[in-house]
């Protein structure tokens, strides 16, 4: 009894290490002092030198620069999102929003919405319906603030000739009117495997499977070793080889920490089933954009959901099932 009451009183800051496992630099820095103060004093010392130069130029400029530096400093030493308490999550989200405001003079909202009970997302793709229009790709790029510079795309649409389903022979770069005579189309993206090999190989636990089945990446924790990329049998992961470019007027401001918030160079990213949308009950952008209804999304744990109806009533298959990855992404035909 004593223990619990102690915990309640001493856990005010939420990062003293008794409520949940402390993470990141906390463990070393934050034995007894409050992390914020600790970092602030560290930052102040660091800024003393830099501030001197700035203050001689302009007083107002140095204020926002100082705040920016301070925020960036705190961001650098934050822990792994997976291990953060709710308070810490809120803290980093606020810092990121403020940083974006300081950098771009524009507000953005970053959500930290967690998974819901009794929800496991699943996806089904009707290869009889897909016509290769690629509206899904456009919607995905816009929704998820993907790098326009390298034309990053999470979705690939493969054009197969009738009579085979050999990806080696499929055309991925078609540019003609679709559907082409005698061909069918098949989309691939991250399959959000139930046994994701990418998660196992990450050396720093920067990628993991959420309770609702979505495989996510903490962009600020990723070190960019690209081991997950090598481990993925489905080409589901993308790497930012250079600083991503998204024109400011095209930035989608409805963001999620684990989803479409702006990335930096040198980190991995991937499809998150549009976590910023799906956790609000909406469909991923690709599902919404598809004009043919080839894409079906829903809760696998709900026996009344469409995805469950498809699994129960259609002949479904998955890709590379022999690898034991258990993708939550099924294909079916009419």
């Amino acid at each position, binding site marked *: 009894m004593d223990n619990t009451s102690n915990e309640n009183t001493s856990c005010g800051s939420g990062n003293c290490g008794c409520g949940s496992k402390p993470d990141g630099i906390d463990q070393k820095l934050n034995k007894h002092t409050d992390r914020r103060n600790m970092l602030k004093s560290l930052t102040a010392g660091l800024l003393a030198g830099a501030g001197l130069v700035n203050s001689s130029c302009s007083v107002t400029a140095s204020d926002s620069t100082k705040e920016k530096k301070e925020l960036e400093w705190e961001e650098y030493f934050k822990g792994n999102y997976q291990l953060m308490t709710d308070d810490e999550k809120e803290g980093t989200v606020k810092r990121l929003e403020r940083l974006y405001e300081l950098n771009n003079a524009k507000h953005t909202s970053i959500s930290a919405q967690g998974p819901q009970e009794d929800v496991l*997302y699943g996806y089904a793709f009707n290869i009889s319906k897909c016509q290769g229009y*690629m509206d899904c790709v456009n919607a995905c790029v816009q929704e998820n603030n993907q790098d326009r510079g390298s034309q990053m795309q999470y979705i690939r649409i493969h054009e197969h000739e009738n009579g085979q389903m050999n990806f080696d022979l499929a055309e991925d770069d078609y540019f003609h009117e679709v559907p082409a005579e005698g061909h069918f189309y098949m989309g691939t993206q991250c399959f959000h495997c*139930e046994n994701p090999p990418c998660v196992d190989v990450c050396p720093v636990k920067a990628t993991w499977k959420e309770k609702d089945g979505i495989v996510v990446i903490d962009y600020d924790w990723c070190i960019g070793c690209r081991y997950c990329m090598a481990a993925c049998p489905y080409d589901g992961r993308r790497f930012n080889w250079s600083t991503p470019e998204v024109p400011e007027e095209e930035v989608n401001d409805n963001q999620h920490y684990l989803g479409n918030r702006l990335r930096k160079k040198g980190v991995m990213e991937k499809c998150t089933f549009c976590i910023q949308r799906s956790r609000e009950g909406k469909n991923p952008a690709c599902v919404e954009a598809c004009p043919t209804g080839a894409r079906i999304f829903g809760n696998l744990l709900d026996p009344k959901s469409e995805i469950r109806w498809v699994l129960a009533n259609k002949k479904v298959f998955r890709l590379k099932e022999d690898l034991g990855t258990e993708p939550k992404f099924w294909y079916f035909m009419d």
Partner: protein
Amino acid sequence: MYTKIMSTIWISVIITCCSSCGHKEDGQHEGHQTINHKLNAKSVDSIQYEVTTEDYFKGLEKVLAEVPDQEFYIPKRTNLITSFPCNNCHSKALDELKITDAEKVKNAHWNIKMTHANANVMECTTCHSEKNVTHLKSITGKAISLNHSYKLCAQCHSSQYKDWQGGAHGKRLGGWAPPKVINSCVNCHNPHSPAFESKWPARLNTVKLKEQSKD
């Protein structure tokens, strides 16, 4: 001496191996299990969802679909047809409305082209009633509301109808969370020309990759 050292090392190696294996068991790994197993074990019959897509349908009038075993909505149709109700024009019998070739400028409904099955099967009056113009009619002559035109389609396209009810055919609006609102047949297909047209894709697939592979 040596054997002592050797055995110490071996034991320590074995212990390290065992303890590291033990980690995996109590970690968050659920081990290898098939997804079907998980679905059977963890499905919940009546889920109380915290989220709703109700906001999405604020401007949309919807009607409950009249189908067995399922409960979902479809967009209301009649308020979207510009000249509905039809008897605004069709106040007289069709014969009387007919104009002679001489005074003919353009037929009413001139823009409608029928590319739906062949002429043996389909003509205007297969679906539209000459007498009850505000309604569609079934093959047996029963009236079907324009809001529930899927009943008409279902007469021939029974397998599509079945898939549509289940959710394998068609398109859900809003999102995956309740309420369930699904496009009716006519929201995607033009009933007079139901096939999807071929067109140019919205964008090129993998430009950069292709460029890189060329040089």
